[in-house]
């Protein structure tokens, strides 16, 4: 009973909050980042996906979700099969590296993937975040199948291929990581010798 009441309150919440005019919100945002340097202006405005996912708070309608996943699938640029799985040692470094893309970074800083900020990966690394699911034994659980590695490449390139309004960054599409870096991270997940698959803790 208490739970039902709680749920009812939760459902009522969005209705209670007055949604401001999106144009007004955008105007406030634009004014608040008015002195952004030229090369940074594009980060202040939203693309279509960001807009839909923001306005729906990551709960797009079925039609919106379908359009988002379709567009995501079309956006993925897959390398040939021979280049899907790179070097897991590099991949581990990329997964650990949270640098890049911040206004405090030195120009030319190479971006990492920062996967550990959100995911558990190798069990030996205890400093991992919990915004995403654990990826421990990821390749092993999938019998190291190339098809799964290919799907994982696509997922890292643009996570909306499997989940519209995923909160994971679009590493490939937004050029945060290069195809080579993504392949290296895929290797970290799919190489049988990678600690993601060998670690017992």
């Amino acid at each position: 009973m208490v739970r039902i009441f709680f749920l009812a309150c939760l459902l009522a919440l969005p209705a209670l909050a007055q949604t401001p005019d999106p144009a007004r919100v955008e105007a406030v945002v634009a004014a608040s980042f008015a002195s952004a340097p030229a090369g940074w202006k594009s980060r202040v405005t939203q693309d279509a996906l960001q807009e839909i996912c923001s306005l729906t708070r990551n709960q797009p309608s079925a039609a919106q979700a379908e359009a988002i996943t379709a567009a995501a699938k079309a956006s993925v640029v897959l390398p040939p099969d021979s280049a899907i799985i790179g070097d897991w040692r590099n991949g581990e470094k990329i997964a650990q590296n949270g640098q890049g893309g911040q206004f405090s970074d030195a120009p030319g800083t190479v971006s990492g993937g920062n996967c550990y900020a959100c995911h558990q990966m190798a069990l030996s690394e205890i400093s991992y975040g919990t915004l995403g699911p654990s990826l421990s034994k990821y390749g092993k659980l999938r019998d190291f199948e190339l098809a799964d590695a290919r799907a994982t490449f696509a997922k890292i390139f643009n996570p909306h291929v499997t989940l519209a309004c995923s909160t994971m960054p679009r590493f490939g599409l937004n050029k945060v990581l290069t195809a080579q870096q993504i392949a290296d991270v895929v290797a970290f997940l799919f190489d049988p010798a990678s600690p993601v698959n060998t670690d017992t803790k």
Partner: protein
Amino acid sequence: MRRYVQHSEHILIFECDNVKLLFAVAAEIGAAQGGGTELLNLLRIMVLCLLGSAANLRAQPADVDGEKEIERYRAMINDPMANPGYLAVDRGEVLWAMARGGKNVSLEKCDLGAGPGVLDGVAAHLPRYFADADQVMDLEQRLLHCMRTLQGLDTKDVIARRFGSPGKTSDMEDLVAFIGNKSLGMKYQASLSHPKEREMANIGEAMFYRRSAINDFACATCHGDDGRRIRLQALPDLSKPGATAREVMASWPAYRVSQSQTRTMQHRLWDCYRQMRMPAPDYASEGITALTMYLAKLGDGATINVPSIKR
């Protein structure tokens, strides 16, 4: 008192790089004065320095212990005289009464919402709508407004020094610490009676969920759920009212041990946008006030504890 502040500031400028040196200085003062408050304060600063290095052990197993250590020290230094944030409070008190600007007057006639010069409790209701400016303002915006209109001060330099660094104090951080501290122990009560205040809170809420930049991050990406963390850093859930939101709203400005500076909400949100891979938000901009207003709404009822100490 001044001497203690100046003295301690000097030591803080050394920035804990050489704790041994501090011990030497402490020994000297101890020998010269036979102890006294100065020595005691130095010792406390040394504890904070050690605490600071614990906080700097990032993202490693030791971090768990570091966090525990900080908890322990936080309890230990819950004493106004040992919290370096109070150095900012003291400097802010001087700045408040200092005649400056083209009109060569102090800020003492500045109206922060409860009438000219009233300081007690004003921070417990900010941000709020100010009819004279026809705008919702947070404390920083209001202070800048008073500096310009009341003092005739060119705020360029003040804004250039908006965030202090070792050896370079910030008038704004100091003033906010001083004024915030005047509401110590009071209940925070968000000002939401004016339509523009409610509009601000709603815009702030929309901004909280607004995804942007190369990683598609929104505030909600990290602060939209209970019990989440980035690496080992626990993230406060700021998507709903409750104890967590109150604790956040009650504890800024805070002395940040990892930065050795007293920081305000302006800096906290600036740093969040940095991590979101957005450009730096403009200081005292409408958007920062909107987000603060949204947080204020969630944190309503908090017991104000500023300046607090954070990692």
